[in-house]
């Protein structure tokens, strides 16, 4: 079975032969992520869109796990999928009334978007495959996740966020900071982001706050926005 699969899709072939789990899982998650992303575009129903989006993002988290970025993957699941999307689904639910669930887009727009999107995709793909150094893993086969779990990534990440870099020797070779630049920690960005988050939350709460409206006499109180204060 291994040979047949491997001959079918050599991307699955590991260096030492046999079925490459990393390749297989990558293929699985990549196809899932891409196809579900396309499904998001294609779907008309907002709730379904969000559902596909959740799955797509989840699959991407799987890709992150495969790439050895476990913390980022878990973060993706927790914040992106868990937090952001619940928020989004909330919004969907709140506005999920019959007329708005599916708002049709003119075909002309779709065609134009496809055209422009295709052009962009072509450019990006060209860029993706044109870098020879970017391709060709020399990973020693086996389970990428298993091999990566030996070297914890959460600790250096946390240290970096606190302003200490412990991966100084990771960057060697041509990418090393030959020009004497020292790789700095991320304490400042971390703090900025935290403040940013706070500000954003306050801002969001402000935007979506409950307002007192004095609709001018009419009992509907519906469409007129003039009375907002």
């Amino acid at each position, binding site marked *: 079975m291994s040979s047949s699969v491997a001959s079918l899709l050599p*991307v699955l072939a*590991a*260096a030492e032969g046999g079925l490459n789990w*990393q*390749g297989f899982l*990558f293929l699985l998650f*990549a196809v899932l*992520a*891409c196809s579900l*992303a396309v499904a*998001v*575009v294609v779907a008309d129903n*907002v709730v379904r869109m969000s559902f596909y989006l959740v799955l*797509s*993002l989840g699959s991407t988290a799987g890709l*992150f796990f495969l*790439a*050895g*970025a476990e*913390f*980022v993957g878990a973060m993706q699941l927790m*914040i992106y999928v868990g937090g*952001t999307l619940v928020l*989004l689904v909330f919004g969907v639910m*709140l506005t999920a009334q019959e007329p708005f669930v599916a*708002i049709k*887009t003119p075909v002309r727009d779709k065609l134009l*978007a496809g055209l*422009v*999107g295709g052009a*962009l*995709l072509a450019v*990006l*793909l060209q860029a993706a*495959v044109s870098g*020879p150094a*970017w*391709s*060709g*893993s020399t*990973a020693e086969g086996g389970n990428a996740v298993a*091999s990566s779990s030996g070297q914890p*990534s959460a600790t250096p*990440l946390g240290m970096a*966020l606190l302003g200490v870099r412990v*991966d100084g020797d*990771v960057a060697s070779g041509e*990418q090393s900071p030959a020009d004497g630049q020292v*790789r700095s920690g*991320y304490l400042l960005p971390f703090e900025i*982001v935290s403040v*940013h*988050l706070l500000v*954003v*939350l306050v*801002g*969001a709460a402000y*935007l979506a706050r409950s307002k007192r409206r004095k609709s001018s006499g009419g009992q509907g109180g519906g*469409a007129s*926005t003039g009375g907002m204060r």
Partner: protein
Amino acid sequence: MNLLFDPVGVSHYLVVGAILFTTGLVCMVVKRNALGVLMGIELVLNGANVNFVAFGSPVLRGEQASILGLDGQLIALFVILLAAAEAAVALAITLNFYNNYSTVDVDRADDLKG
């Protein structure tokens, strides 16, 4: 070179990222529903994230040092956080938009047209 015949590397991830990115952009362009646009943004950010993680991954490059090292993951983290923040604000904007226009159709929001 042929992606199908290479072991999984950075390029593969870049391809996935590119597809996600493009899909997101198309989503933003095509969807008239404000929430759809929002989802498009999420996809775009996610596509970018895939690239960052790929560039920063030590696994994908084997013994060779990754291009970004830890920075890739860190940037991805920041992107995720900012995406969460963005989603919160965007959702609040959408709800406000909905309050004001009774619809989430972004084409209806053209008060700022020249």
